């Protein structure tokens, strides 16, 4: 098992390197760069350009040099000093800007994941065991709608409803008095109070997908011979269901973490923009629009790493659950 984890960890390294390269290429794609457009706009308005400061920045990031040099400078900064570069627009190191937002993104995605599981698991079991019952049809139908509705649309509708009928806005993750406050238990409690709305919005399509997966898996398992064996042993139906088919159907279910987590991280980017959550989404969008390349690049890189870690966790979980993988 340990060996398995070690092997998977080693495999992560080339993936992350490749991701960082791709990320860098993407943020280099737009013609021009932030400094050039900054100088241009400053010259237009007739502002004084601090030439020496500009030169230091250029030298530090190798701007104007070939792209691979710039890449190595950036990558080396990250590895050696944990320096992700400078946000041009905010005039702050990227590290000052991303961590809290990444952490909140992670909290949001993880709690959404838990939410989807807690909802999808029992409903999936119910739908499979009571196949073709009224409840099954209702859940299947709702599931389809959930899958077909873009998250941001749901967010808009919910915001509209609460604005129109309850006259309050649902945006944000904190009450106004906590937005700038340092972290405290009160702030965490406040976060919890706000978290559920984006959680539900983000979670619907995932829940719908998971219900369908759980239902299909379980339907496959329910008529397997080992279930008959267990029944022939005299096991009560409910215990039998949970111990055998549900347990076996859990494996493919768990392996979905690998892609639901990235999906949630992705999805939260858009929903956060709509709900103006202090997560990565809005800032990433803004950085991309204004060509704040190191900020944007760092976000994409870190989100991708988060995804890779999510996949790793699901693989480990799966190996832990499924002896056939563990004993390979």
């Amino acid at each position: 098992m340990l060996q398995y984890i070690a092997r998977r960890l080693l495999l992560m390294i080339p993936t992350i390197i490749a991701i960082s390269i791709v990320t860098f290429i993407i943020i280099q794609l737009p013609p021009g760069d932030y400094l050039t457009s900054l100088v241009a706009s400053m010259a237009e308005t007739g502002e004084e350009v601090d030439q020496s400061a500009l030169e230091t920045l250029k030298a530090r990031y190798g701007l104007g040099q070939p792209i691979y040099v710039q890449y190595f400078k950036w990558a080396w900064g990250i590895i050696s000093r944990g320096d992700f570069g400078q946000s041009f627009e905010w005039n702050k190191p990227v590290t000052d800007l991303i961590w809290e937002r990444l952490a909140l993104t992670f909290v949001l995605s993880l709690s959404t994941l838990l939410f989807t599981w807690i909802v999808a698991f029992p409903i999936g079991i119910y739908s499979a065991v009571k196949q073709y019952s009224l409840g099954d049809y209702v859940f299947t139908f709702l599931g389809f709608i959930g899958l077909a509705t873009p998250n941001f649309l749901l967010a808009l509708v919910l915001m509209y409803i609460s604005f129109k009928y309850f006259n309050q806005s649902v945006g944000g993750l904190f009450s106004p008095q906590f937005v700038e406050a340092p972290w405290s238990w009160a702030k965490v409690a406040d976060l919890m109070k706000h978290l559920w709305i984006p959680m539900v919005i983000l979670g619907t399509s995932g829940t719908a997908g998971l219900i369908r997966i759980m239902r299909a898996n379980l339907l496959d398992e329910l008529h397997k011979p080992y279930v008959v064996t267990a029944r022939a042993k005299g096991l009560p139906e409910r215990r039998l269901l949970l111990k055998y088919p549900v347990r076996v159907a859990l494996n493919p279910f768990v392996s979905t973490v690998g892609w639901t987590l990235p999906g949630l991280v992705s999805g939260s980017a858009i929903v956060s923009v709509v709900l103006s959550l202090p997560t990565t989404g809005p800032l990433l969008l803004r950085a991309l629009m204004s060509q704040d390349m190191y900020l944007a690049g760092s976000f994409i890189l870190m989100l991708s790493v988060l995804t890779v870690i999510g996949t790793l966790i699901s693989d480990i979980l799966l190996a832990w659950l499924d002896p056939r993988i563990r004993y390979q």
Partner: protein
Amino acid sequence: MANQDQDILLEVKGLKTYFFLDEGTVKAVDGVDFEIRRQQTLCIVGESGCGKSVTARSILQIVDPPGRIVEGEILYHRRNGNTTEVLNLAAMDPRGQEIRAVRGKEISMIFQEPMTSLSPVHTIGNQIMEAILLHMPVSKNEARDTAIDMLRRVGIPKPESRINDYPFQLSGGMRQRAMIAMALVCRPSLLIADEPTTALDVTTQAQILDLMLELQEEMGMAIMLITHDLGVVAEMADDVVVMYLGHAVERGDVDSIFHDPKHPYTRALLRSIPKVGLKARERLDSIRGMVPDPYHRPAGCPFHTRCDEAIPGVCDRIVPPRIPLGDGREVRCLLYTEEYAGER
């Protein structure tokens, strides 16, 4: 008579188990009668799809929906010391406590596919101990010891460590041994074995059958063995039931069935086994035609479409009744009624 009654463990009377599907009703078992005697072996033979497995599952009430027992009695003679109590298993609620107390404890079952019949994600120890803990008032440690003893008894080497293995870590034969250990661990009075050796190679087959005979001797249980293989029947059976399309067409003790088969189907079946000394050129007799599909069962005697001796206008109209021939033998063929005996 009383003596004979003492002898009987299980009586199946007029059992009918149907599957109610959208496409129609499948009469998988359509009137089957037989008895299983204590400590004896009953073999059920018949072509694929004739309802052998469904009969076996009906006994334990583990027929998958949409199938259910629609008629008949399954009388289990439970012995408590000197008294016997007769329970009708067919009348019990399939999910109820009563039938669950019988399953695995008094009647247990092993299946054809030892790989898929064991849970892939639980150790065999876990699965065997579960049976013990369900039916016997023992602690976990005691259950574990019992399980290890049982594994040793069925011939699994190093049972202390094997008990922690998952089914995929065992060979096919070992898995079937583990299945047997699991079925016998509560010392049932009847073991139902549904083609326990079909998925195994020939040598392993023989070993498993020997093991079953040995354990039968030792534990004194009855065996209901379902098989395609008439060779296995000859070796194992005391009594035989021949099934065709949901009917028990003939039954009797093994010698009379083999030496004096009555039903045309049984005779055809016996002709189809290769005999020692058969010249290479001689063709094996196979039964002509195909088994009719389950939705379109022939009217009258189910076998008449393939029967060489069928009486036109009679066999395709009248469902043959059970005709006792004495000595516990019985056949369902119109040729043995007084009325049509002349046609024989």
